[in-house]
């Protein structure tokens, strides 16, 4: 649905002496139709540029961005406008028109597209119903809460019936409870309308809750890409590890603990099985729990425990864990 082919974006130097500033360098990635794709990175990592390349608010200085079969840079003015009607966008600060009512804001993209008045009216009512704001149609944005404003933003982004929804830090200005509700709504759009969603964020928690796949950006480069499960449970890059630790709290390993250190990762049903006890009884291995986390990735429960194994048959214990569908990472420590 969306493909980045070795995309670079360099901004012209602001002063004469400084060279250009590279916001993105050589980024290649692809987003499949119907998936929720997260892009995570610290501020200045290039996320904002990346998402704006998709609807042509920015143009690449190198490489190609292909959206729904079209090379964005090769589209003419009209082609770009047509593309933008197929790509909705919501923003961190909502960007609603303060002088227009909720209904007028939602109707705005339809009016821009020159749709007949009767259709605009019906579609606006339908969209407000979907985001639960029918009762607020006549209010101005300043009279709404942050969560309500983002709902207006979502209704407005959906107005022209897009296939793709871009979320530019859409929950970063919201409190945790409202964030939850907005993410729920966005997930629902993905499930019910089959929307392809690209969201950029600096919060791993947002990625964990709604994304299928995630790309990690650092300094304009793609440092890691994969399923949320893989990146979250087994982050390969330092950047991804930092984001995971931020979201989860660090798994601390007490220094000087004896035994073999292993990290067990349980996924899905295995999370709820009494695997630890069974294996300990069968192999005579004792374990002490040094750290751990139990949570949910979208709908999948998972657990991750760091253990020190002592006594008994450690090798057999590891084999049994693996047989039970638990991933075992050997963190070293004293061997058997």
């Amino acid at each position, binding site marked *: 649905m969306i493909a980045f082919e070795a995309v670079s974006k360099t901004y012209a130097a602001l002063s004469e002496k400084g060279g250009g500033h590279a916001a993105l360098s050589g980024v290649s990635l692809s987003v499949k139709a119907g998936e929720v794709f997260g892009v995570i990175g610290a501020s200045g990592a290039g996320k904002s540029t990346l998402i704006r390349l998709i609807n042509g608010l920015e143009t690449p200085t190198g490489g190609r961005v292909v959206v729904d079969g079209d090379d964005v840079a090769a589209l003419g003015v009209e082609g770009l*406008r047509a593309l933008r009607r197929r790509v909705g966008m919501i923003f961190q600060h909502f960007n609603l028109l303060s002088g227009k009512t909720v209904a007028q804001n939602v109707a705005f993209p339809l009016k*821009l597209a020159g749709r007949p008045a009767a259709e605009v009216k019906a579609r606006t009512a339908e969209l407000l119903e979907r985001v639960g704001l029918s009762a607020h149609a006549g209010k101005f944005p300043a009279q709404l809460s942050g969560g309500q404003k983002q709902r207006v933003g979502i209704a407005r982004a959906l107005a022209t019936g897009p296939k793709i929804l871009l979320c530019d830090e859409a929950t970063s200005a919201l409190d945790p409870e409202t964030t939850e509700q907005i993410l729920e709504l966005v997930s629902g759009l993905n499930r019910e309308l089959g929307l392809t969603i690209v969201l950029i964020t600096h919060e791993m928690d947002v990625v964990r809750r709604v994304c299928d796949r995630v790309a990690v950006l650092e300094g304009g480069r793609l440092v890691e890409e994969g399923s949320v499960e893989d990146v979250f449970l087994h982050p390969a890059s330092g950047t991804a590890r930092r984001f995971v630790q931020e979201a989860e709290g660090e798994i601390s390993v007490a220094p000087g603990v004896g035994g073999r250190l292993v990290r067990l990762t349980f996924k899905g049903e295995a999370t709820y099985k009494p695997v630890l006890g069974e294996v300990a009884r069968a192999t005579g291995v004792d374990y002490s729990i040094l750290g751990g986390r139990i949570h949910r990735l979208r709908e999948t429960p998972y657990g991750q425990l760091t253990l020190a194994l002592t006594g008994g048959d450690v090798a057999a214990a590891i084999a049994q864990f693996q047989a039970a569908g638990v991933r075992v990472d050997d963190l070293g420590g004293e061997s058997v």
Partner: protein
Amino acid sequence: MENIDWAEIGQATLDTLAMLGGSMVLTILLGLPLGVILFLTGKGQMLQNRLANGALSLLVNVLRSVPFVILLIVMIPLTVALVGTSLGVAGAIPPLVVGAAPFFARLVETALREVDKGVIEASFAMGAKRRQVVLGALLPEALPGLVAAATVTAVALVSYTAMAGVVGAGGLGDLAIRFGYQRFQTDVMIVTVVLLLVLVQVLQMIGDAVVRRVSHK
């Protein structure tokens, strides 16, 4: 109050209002597009053009730096060419507009700069044409600022109309100069000044009320 001729003061008030109304309408018609172009050709804006922006900016600065009394006199040949006379209400309007339009244009430019860039970006992201962004988002979002700019300009025009009395424009300012100042008729002076003060006060109140009405921040 023995010098006061109320009929003459009434006529002078009407003349002032006519000069104000006529020049205000033309100032907005000329100054608003000028301000919009100044804004749009500015750095980082959608029609960024250093040359056009620099030229317009220079023109505005030149016109704004000429003292209005001088402008009144320098403009006389042009005024005659435009409206056939340099006297009376009609003769006052061209210099009033030339004096006020650049001033209003700068205020318009400032009001447009206050518009949230995110709203403009969002409009483009929705597939708006430039014209739709300007007419549908930029100007409506700047409306409270534009009304405030028009109010300030109208008040400035009131004092300009008083000055236009110097070149025979008529109106309250003319009365104040001819009778109040040149003939030492202090009572006429006081009445005209009070009337001008009331006019300014009323304009400001109307402007403020409209700003409150159109502002939804």
